[in-house]
């Protein structure tokens, strides 16, 4: 089974999909590690589950787990369920069977971002200027940072955690508490962060519509300019050769193979959408990438052939989240209006 964007049938018709309407904006989506279930974080406090299998009956809606909006969602790195964070200050572990357990509560704070590390079972979440690291049942706080954390991610080996904030990025050694944090400074506010899949680079999006990338080994850095909006979504290809970025009308990838992207324009490919890409998600293993637009359109791109196909038509509600299933054939997406989508790319 292969994804073949050159197949004329792919251009002619949309792949099979399930679309369920909720009435709350979708802040995030994820697949469970066993691949059976997609979950959607909703603005009414619910985490809605749907089967990955389009032929299976839709799971009924469950009562809210957060008071207020769910702001962050990820697959549970230590199980088959999910973890969620909300503007009620709670960080929850959600079982596929409906069980809910509280990992942390930070009164008056919002839990806005969650990062996970599958191999070590660790997860980290933001709570204002502090990051909460949950590992082997223990919760540890790192910080405070200079400002509220706007993005965080684990290193490839899970031993370090990078937090983006006003003035740059701070990297904490979470395996060994005695090591001092490392600071990577760049003036201004950083609004998104992704550590490269090979652990060698950290990329951020900035308030000034740039992206900034630090090379870990030499602590050198580079700045890429020319975006018309903030780059809120960054995604590294599985082989760490490409950094995909949002805020362009076509797929935009910076090459980190060989000498890196300095002095070279990014590779841009695919069909130009009517609007800008709001979310990008690189395929978990292969050369494909998903792009969701502020028009509601979703495209699947192939960086090898530099083609793209539309897999969901524009409908005016911006795509807010995208997630690949572990099998690399199915995906989940959500939008501002509250549509929950599961798409199967196999024909």
């Amino acid at each position: 089974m292969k994804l073949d964007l050159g197949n004329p049938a792919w251009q002619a018709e949309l792949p099979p999909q399930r679309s369920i309407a909720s009435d709350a904006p979708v802040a995030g989506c994820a697949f469970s590690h066993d691949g059976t279930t997609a979950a959607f974080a909703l603005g009414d406090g619910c985490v809605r589950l749907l089967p990955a299998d389009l032929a299976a009956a839709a799971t009924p809606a469950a009562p809210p787990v957060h008071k207020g909006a769910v702001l962050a969602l990820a697959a549970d790195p230590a199980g088959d369920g999910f973890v969620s964070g909300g503007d009620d200050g709670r960080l929850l572990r959600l079982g596929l069977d409906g069980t809910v357990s509280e990992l942390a509560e930070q009164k008056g704070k919002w839990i806005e971002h969650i990062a996970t590390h599958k191999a070590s079972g660790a997860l980290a979440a933001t709570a204002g200027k502090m990051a909460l690291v949950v590992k082997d049942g223990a919760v540890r706080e790192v910080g405070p940072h200079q400002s509220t954390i706007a993005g965080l991610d684990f290193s490839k080996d899970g031993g370090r955690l990078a937090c983006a904030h006003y003035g740059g990025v701070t990297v904490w050694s979470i395996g060994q508490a005695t090591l001092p944090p490392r600071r990577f400074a760049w003036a201004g506010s950083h609004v998104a962060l992704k550590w490269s899949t090979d652990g060698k680079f950290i990329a951020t999006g900035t308030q000034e519509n740039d992206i900034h990338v630090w090379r870990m080994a030499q602590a050198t850095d580079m700045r890429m300019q020319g975006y018309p909006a903030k780059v809120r979504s960054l995604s590294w290809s599985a082989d760490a050769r490409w950094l995909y970025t949002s805020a362009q009308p076509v797929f935009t990838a910076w090459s980190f193979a060989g000498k890196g992207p300095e002095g070279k324009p990014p590779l841009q490919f695919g069909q130009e959408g009517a609007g800008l890409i709001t979310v990008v998600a690189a395929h978990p293993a292969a050369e494909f990438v998903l792009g969701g637009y502020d028009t509601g359109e979703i495209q699947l791109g192939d960086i090898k052939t530099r083609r793209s196909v539309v897999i969901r038509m524009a409908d005016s509600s911006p795509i807010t989240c995208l997630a690949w299933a572990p099998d690399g054939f199915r995906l989940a997406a959500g939008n501002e209006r509250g549509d929950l989508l599961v798409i199967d790319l196999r024909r």
Partner: protein
Amino acid sequence: MATSQSSAQVPVTVLTGYLGAGKTTLLNRILSEQHGKKYAVIVNEFGELGVDNDLVVNADEEVFEMNNGCICCTVRGDLIRIIEGLMKRKDKFDGILVETTGLADPGPVAQTFFTDDDVKARTRLDAIVTVVDAKHFLGQLEQGDEAEEQVAFADVVLLNKTDLVSADELKKVEDRIRSINPYARLHRTEKSKIELDAILDKGAFDLNRILEFEPDFLEHGHDHDHEDEVTSLSLVSDRPVDPDKFQKWMGAILQIKGPDIFRSKGILAIDGAPRRYVYQGVHMMMDADWGQPWKEGEPRTSKLVFIGRNLDGENLKRGFQDCLK
């Protein structure tokens, strides 16, 4: 960006004022009135009193400099983040009220609404409301720039606690406020008691509503001119404005004097143009557009206002004269 909500921007009212002036009392008044509206309230961490509302967000005032070489270009990072977060909720609301700390500079709050595209797409700054403590204002002016700048930024001033001062004292305070900012609407209040339509939905930053602005008083009752003082200046002319010269002149002023100019607005009769040209700004940030057409026979008068520190009146007058046909 083409979003379905862009037509329904949520109005944001900023409540500012020195410590103890009565901001929280005003906030609770707004919330307790039977207006049938729902407000999200963003309060600072050091709030004086509790606020009774379903949707209260505690904010650290995180003032961020933009990394774009513009020295006075600061924004409230926490506001950008919180507004974005509020939009993820299912419950929608009719307005957002932002309470600043007593020592806050309103500049970064206002500039956030000029600078950040995501914030601009979802919200609009409606007005800056400054609560002034009638008893302590003159003393507060001596303690730093904050009390003076909060009045300079204001669209609406609530001269509060009027019951605690004599008629003479009140007159003195009022004159002082008007010497700083004669264009703000001034209301005398006790215990922050005010009709809500005096402070909400003012459209003070709406270019379509900058039709006329007149000082809220007739005589300048303030005659001692200290250095470093915040004052206002208005320039008027019946001669048409040369748009290129004006743009160059205004650009240069904001470049050099931007940090000292808190608010500016203007209505211009551009040479040969059938419509008014309207603009308004905070520090170096500026919003401008074509406004209403001039009516037949209507006098085409251009009018500019600056509120700022160390305004060089003669220089500004001369500069404006040079932009006229």
